[in-house]
Every structure is written in structure tokens, then in C-alpha cells.
């Protein structure tokens, strides 16, 4: 189980909640139960193939899940998951 912090623009898909407690023993399970609770959130976070979208980074507490086992990273009660976009750009 983990608390998932919901970025402002996504709260329209979570009944205005700014965080959601979602069950699951791993990051993958928590995200799956989150998007089962709030199906409209699924399209925001996952591609049609079920992969996390390229602009979405998932952090477990303060760590990027890519470095701690990705979807398989274990979650414990009291953990916080954050959804953080990748942002860059340039004039040319």
C-alpha cells in the first residue's frame, strides 16, 4: 500500500483528491490499483500497450523507480509515490 500524490491537473480524474491511498505490494501493483479505482487516470499515465508514458517519471519517496527495480520495487505502508513529468525544450 502506498500514498500516491496526484498532480493538480490530474485531480479531475481522482474526484478532486490530491492524494490517493492505493493497495499493492509493488510500485506496479499500486499503479494498477490506482488506475482501477480511477480508470480515467489510466490514459494519462499509461500508453495503450500498458507502458508508463515517456513523459511520466515515477518516484517512490525520493527515488526514481528506474534505479530501484522499476515496477517491481516493493512498497511498504507509509511510502509515497509521486508522478513527475520529464520536461525539456529549446528555442531551436
Amino acid at each position, binding site marked *: 500500500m502506498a500514498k500516491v*500524490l496526484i498532480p*493538480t*491537473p490530474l485531480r479531475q480524474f481522482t474526484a478532486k483528491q490530491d492524494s490517493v491511498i492505493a493497495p499493492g505490494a509493488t510500485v506496479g501493483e499500486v499503479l494498477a490499483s490506482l488506475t482501477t479505482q480511477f480508470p480515467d487516470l489510466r490514459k494519462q499515465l499509461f500508453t495503450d500497450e500498458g507502458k508508463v508514458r515517456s513523459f511520466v517519471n515515477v*518516484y517512490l519517496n525520493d527515488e526514481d523507480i528506474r534505479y530501484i527495480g522499476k515496477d517491481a520495487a516493493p512498497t511498504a505502508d507509509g511510502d509515497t509515490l509521486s508522478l513527475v*513529468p520529464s*520536461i525539456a*525544450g*529549446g*528555442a*531551436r
Partner: protein
Amino acid sequence: MIRIETEPWAAMVAHAQASYPNECCGAMLGTTVSTPDGDTKVVHEAIALQNAFEGAQAARYELRPEDLLASDKAARERHMDLIGIYHSHPDCDAYFSTTDLQNSCPWYSFVVLSIQNGVFHHANSWLPNFDQTEAAKEELTY
């Protein structure tokens, strides 16, 4: 639409001018106010973030996700939301480039400040779509 209050606006312009001839980037914290004409995002605070692009930064910027995460936390602690991202275009207009679009995220407003010869010239706000193929211009006041 998005309205940037005087203090954060001055901070953003100062940051963009100080970073010239490089691009700067930062986060905008604020609140969303519902009006009969629709929602207005009001920016109360701008946070200058480091341009993490590795290489020449005259026409590129990159935000560290860790910095965005910290900005989001700061917003929550102050009962605000992370509502936008800003960056500058040195000696270029405030358009939303293909590079901007391809590295954007549909969750936020993107304010671009055009800095010409080191001095603020004009700004626009953009709302990129979900597929990163188009950005709509958002009404911006400051």
C-alpha cells in the same frame, strides 16, 4: 487563462535576463480560481530552477525531475499547486518550438519569455496537447 502576479513575474523576468544568452527554466506555483468565464490560474510564486541540459544552453533547457518534485512539495506545503513551467528564448520569439513540444507534458501551462539582446521583449503561454503534436496559446496576463 493564466495570470502572473507582479512579484513572481518580476522574478521570472530577472531570472531570464540574468541567464541570457542562455535559456533559463523554472516552476510556477499558484492556485486556480473558478470564474463564470472559466478557470483562471493565478501564479503567486516563481521558483528558479537549474537548466540541467548538458551542452550549449543558448537554445536548450532541461528540468531535473528531482527539482520538479521538490517544487511540487513546496507548493503543497504552502497550500498552492504546481501549475506551470517557464523558460526563456534568448534572441528568439516566444513561440513553442518543436523541441519544446516533443519534451512537454500536457499537465501544465508553459510560459515562454522572449529575451532580445538581454532584455525582456514579450511572452506567451502554451498548453501542449496529450500527444505532444500541438500547443494551444493560452491567454496570459502579468
